[in-house]
């Protein structure tokens, strides 16, 4: 049962016939993990908190840096130096005291990711760390958790939603991470700050659709966004029978550590 204040707070959801009271209750019962309280994670966390996702976990081991503020809109100037998970949780609770925010001030590794994932039903990848992205992909596969991959760089972004074992995964497309330093990170190549808002908000949309059971997820598809010509292109993907993780003869049968991150951990793991 929603309280009177909740009926008012969520009224714009409640009048959508596709959401309604039943849908809002689904959102309040949903549990979403956001990995990275950075560029992508910031808008995702703000909108999911506002939407009334009942339990939101935020994973990040970094502290807020002045260079983050150009795009990581959940962190404000007085937060510089503060743990990102705490800075994010404060804003999320201020937007919506209905929700529970769990903070996980850790870097995800093979030995800590599975127990964290176990508490959630959908995962948003807001990292910009190749090893972490593949770790999330693999762990979600083994845990059977749906997740949405997102990435931004310079003026472009891309995303893929994965239902493990059912739809194309990151390794179906890319195999494994590029060698360290082969692909520039945001600190090396730059990123237009607002790109994080576009892609992070689209990732949050996938989390809401999944919780509501509404619409069609971005599965077996890759969305490419280019800010300079304002184009969205959707490529069709197919599962790769030779995928090392979810193919016919997988070679990855347990979590393993990939090469160290290509990016500067301090300032850039969450573009």
């Amino acid at each position, binding site marked *: 049962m929603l309280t009177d204040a909740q009926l008012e707070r969520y009224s714009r959801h409640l009048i959508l016939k596709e959401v309604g009271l039943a849908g809002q209750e689904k959102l309040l019962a949903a549990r979403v993990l956001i990995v990275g309280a950075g560029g992508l994670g910031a808008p995702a966390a703000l909108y999911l908190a506002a939407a009334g996702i009942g339990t939101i976990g935020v994973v990040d081991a970094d502290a807020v840096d002045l260079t983050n503020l150009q795009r990581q809109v959940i962190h404000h100037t007085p937060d510089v130096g503060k743990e990102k998970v705490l800075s994010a949780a404060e804003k999320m609770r201020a937007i919506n005291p209905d929700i529970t925010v769990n903070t996980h001030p850790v870097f995800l590794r093979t030995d800590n990711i599975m127990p964290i994932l176990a508490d959630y039903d959908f995962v948003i990848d807001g990292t*910009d760390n*190749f090893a972490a992205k593949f770790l999330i992909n693999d762990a979600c596969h083994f845990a059977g958790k749906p997740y949405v991959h997102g*990435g*931004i*760089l*310079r003026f*472009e*972004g*891309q*995303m893929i939603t994965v239902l493990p074992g059912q739809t*194309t995964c990151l390794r*179906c*497309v*890319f*195999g494994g*991470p*590029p*060698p360290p330093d*082969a*692909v*520039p990170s945001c600190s090396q*190549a730059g990123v237009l700050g607002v790109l994080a808002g576009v892609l992070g908000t689209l990732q949050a949309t996938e989390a809401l659709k999944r919780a509501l059971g509404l619409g069609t997820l971005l599965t077996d598809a*890759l969305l*490419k*966004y280019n800010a300079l010509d304002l*184009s969205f*292109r959707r*490529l*069709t*993907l*197919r599962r*790769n029978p*030779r995928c090392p993780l979810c193919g016919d003869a997988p070679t990855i049968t347990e979590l393993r550590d990939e090469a160290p991150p290509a990016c500067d951990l301090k300032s850039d793991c969450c573009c």
Partner: protein
Amino acid sequence: MKITVNGQEKEVGAATIAGLLQELEVKSPDQVAVELNGGILHKSDYETTAVQEGDAVEFVYFMGGGQNAD
């Protein structure tokens, strides 16, 4: 022959995907995923996969960037 590369029509002469990566001077070809007519190609098939009139080819960099594929 005419093919579509990243949504834009192009006139190319390459006979294979490996040749196409060279002809279009795709940066860091070992880090790009190639989608041909809606399916991702395995890297070991680049040398043997023919490019044909009307093909739709997409170069996808990890993270939607890295380098500009166009």
